């Protein structure tokens, strides 16, 4: 038998029909499986959507009731709540509703959260060893205003895990207001810029209270705590820490000195301008500009010579800041500076810029 005959026997019509039938069946089976899978998926999706719709209706009715005491759970709902993933969905929905609603409905949301036993889930999450679950648990308890958990939450304000720490700090300040900032006294972990902004935003909504810990925070070994404390001293005009802030001008860290200069501009007294003038020569270019800017706020005619000397600086930016400062804090000095500028092209154009700004 030649090779060609062997091939012809192998691809005989019967075998070809059998192969075609086999592949057709496989194709049909695959298509059927895809169809069934899509059908199940669609059914599950619509089933979930229907349950979510019913659930939303049930929650909405509960929220509009005067009290949640009489709320009953139908069997389908009991079945739904048996799964942790569903309870988590309801917790999320309630938190979202709490962000949007206030008044009686907001109280009903918390009542419902407790009645459905969702606090237990949040507690379990907070006590979990997995950091993101812990952070989530803290967030849920805070959003639902569970003040009785404040002490336990506060223990996490210096956690190793950034997410846990941030949620715990936010919750502690949310529960205790300015008194909640006491965690800064023990904070050894970083307090990043974003978290600082979040905390300041939270404090912004509250009435200012005493901050006995502020001097301690300014002397903290944690650089970010020091910077945050300086921001607080600046925003809430904490004049009593002026000298301590002035001492920070000698710090090695540039960011710390920058914030200290800014803060001194807000809580300055008659000594501040002199302190800043002494610091000027040792500073970086950026901080020099900042010092000149702050002199505009805390300076006086005593700074005239110092500001006049700045007209000999090589950097036009420094000249501009010095002129602005003079225009703000010393009227006579400003007139003197304008006459000096008449004979100097560069100073003349800078003074025109300052005059333009003053007109605005």
């Amino acid at each position, binding site marked *: 038998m030649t090779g060609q005959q062997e091939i012809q026997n192998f691809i005989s019509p019967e075998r070809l029909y059998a192969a075609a039938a086999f592949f057709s069946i496989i194709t049909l089976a695959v298509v059927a499986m895809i169809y069934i899978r899509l059908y199940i998926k669609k059914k599950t999706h619509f089933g979930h959507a229907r349950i979510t719709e019913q659930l939303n209706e049930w*929650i909405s009715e509960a929220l*509009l009731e005067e009290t949640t005491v009489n709320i009953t759970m139908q069997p389908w709902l009991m079945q739904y709540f048996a799964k942790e993933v569903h309870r988590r969905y309801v917790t999320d929905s309630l938190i979202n*509703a709490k*962000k949007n*609603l206030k008044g009686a409905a907001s109280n009903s949301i918390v009542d419902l959260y407790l009645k459905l036993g969702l606090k237990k889930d949040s507690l379990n999450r907070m006590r979990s060893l997995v950091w993101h679950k812990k952070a989530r648990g803290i967030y849920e308890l805070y959003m639902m205003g569970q003040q009785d958990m404040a002490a336990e939450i506060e223990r996490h304000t210096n956690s190793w895990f950034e997410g846990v720490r941030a949620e715990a700090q936010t919750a502690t300040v949310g529960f205790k207001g300015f008194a909640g900032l006491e965690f800064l006294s023990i904070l050894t972990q970083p307090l990043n810029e974003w978290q600082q902004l979040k905390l300041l935003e939270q404090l912004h909504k509250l009435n200012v209270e005493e901050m006995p810990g502020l001097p301690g925070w300014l002397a903290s070994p944690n650089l970010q705590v020091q910077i945050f404390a300086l921001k607080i001293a600046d925003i809430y005009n904490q004049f009593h820490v002026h000298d301590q802030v002035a001492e920070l001008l000698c710090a090695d860290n540039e960011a710390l000195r920058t914030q200290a200069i800014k803060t001194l501009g807000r809580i300055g007294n008659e000594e501040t301008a002199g302190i800043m003038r002494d610091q000027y020569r040792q500073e970086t270019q950026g901080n020099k500009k900042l010092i000149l800017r702050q002199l505009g706020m805390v300076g006086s005619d005593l700074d005239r010579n110092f500001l006049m000397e700045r007209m000999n600086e090589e950097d036009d930016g420094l000249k501009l800041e010095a002129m602005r400062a003079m225009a703000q804090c010393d009227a006579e000095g400003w007139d003197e500076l304008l006459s000096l500028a008449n004979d100097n092209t560069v100073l003349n154009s800078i003074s025109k810029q300052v005059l333009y700004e003053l007109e605005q």
Partner: protein
Amino acid sequence: MPKILLIEDDNLIRKTVELKFKKENLDVVCACDGREGLQKLPLEMPDIVLTDLMLPYASGLEIVSAVKAIEEKDIPVIIFSTMGQEHIVQEAFRLGADDFIAKPFSLTELTIRIKNQLKKTE
């Protein structure tokens, strides 16, 4: 019964507001996004529109513009806004919005505002 077109993408909030209005004997038509809102607007011709500013497919500003473009009827628009949307609220007022209510809001206050607006247009 006055008819309200409520456009809000948060299911639970939409349902809660809808139920509250029904309890107050107000007729409510709901839309879950901007596109559905724009579709229902000419069909329903509501007496008042209550819309969120941030919506999928079409924003609250587009809703305000569409409502104010209707010549047959002067329909008041109340917008929901959240903190940090002040500039969008200003834009909405420039486009003709009649009132706004900041989130979080009280359902009672919302109902009073709606009724006041309805009284004005009576």
